């Protein structure tokens, strides 16, 4: 199981702060594709991804038990 934390507009889009996915192993890229289909996210490009509080890239592999955060940059100031 992978725990996924959502922030900012991603939270709003699906009305949840976190979701859980039953997979053993998946790349960041694959997870993005899966979430786009399953939850109809408008856009997951330019969203920073962290696995267990470490910056992750598209080809990185997420293991069952990991916590993944999807962090869209906020722009205001």
């Amino acid at each position, binding site marked *: 199981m992978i725990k996924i*934390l959502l*922030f*900012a*507009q991603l939270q709003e889009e699906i009305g949840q*702060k976190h979701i859980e996915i039953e997979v053993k192993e998946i790349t960041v890229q694959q997870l993005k594709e899966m979430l786009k289909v399953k939850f109809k996210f408008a*856009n997951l*490009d*330019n969203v*920073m991804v*962290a696995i267990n*509080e*470490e*910056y992750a*890239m598209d080809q990185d592999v997420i293991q069952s038990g990991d916590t993944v*955060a999807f*962090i*869209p*940059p*906020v*722009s*205001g*100031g």
Partner: protein
Amino acid sequence: MTDRYSRQIMFKHIGEMGQEKIGQKHVLIIGCGALGSANAENLVRAGIGKLTIIDRDYVEITNLQRQNLFTEKDCDEQLPKVIAAKKRLEEINSSVCIVPHVLDANFETLCPIIERSSIDLIIDATDNFDTRFLINDISLKYNIPWIMGSCVGSMGMSFTILPGQTPCLQCLLDSLPVSGATCDSVGIVSPAVQMVTAFQSTEALKILVEDYYSLRTTLVTFDLWSNYFQTIRVERAKKEHCPTCGKQPSYPYLQYDSQTKTELLCGRNTVQIRTGKKIPIDRLAKRLKKVGQLRVNPYLLSIDYQSYRAVIFRDGRVLIHGTNSKEIAKKIYHQLIG
């Protein structure tokens, strides 16, 4: 006069030596909205030697909810933000040299300022990623650390970029984020500003006293209303072929083509037009006085026109309030100025 900083000198990581260093440093703050005001106030209270602030905007009533340097009077007088800021900052600490620029921050305006000054640190207080990527290029090209900060709603983030050491913004975000949440679309509460400022000002003090060892190396992100806080280790994001901090940098945001001339000020129902020429405000005022309700101060002219309001700055910028259409904005501009 050092008595004034006694509580800061007592702090073991600053001390007499650190205070002296702070007093010799020059910081550039880009943007004088919520983050800009708050960072500027902190640095001026801390006894920074010199502070340059750039902002293109003037004080509006909707700013007062979170922008700590401004009052109702500044708003009535429609003062440019940096001018109102300088006035307050000098009342707070008359020994700091404050240099205000009523300017749109773009590579044509920023590079000359950087080149003729000796800037020790840049603080990001802008409200858009266009300008942040520009700051990022400037930071790497001129070897000046910068501290990114942004906030919206009850959320915020901050990250410190040290050329040659940390990943840069370009490493973290391959390209310009499109349609991020803005203060004007989802609102903002003032504690989000303060939290980001607390991170930015702490990192600023560390850099100013040259305590690089203590710098936060993580990207910090939070949501105060949801009681959420996270730091992200980003060392591995640094890219060898990054166009900004890689081995053969091209500094993409310092190219002329990357600049925009007419831009929508997102969520503010406002379009900004940059004409690239100085506007003779006084002559214009004479001509426009029968056209609509007019206010003039040394920096700008503002006029109510149809259902819009046009604010014309001496340096050639025009804000058209009341529309999100570049075309309408251009039309009004041409109708008023010719």
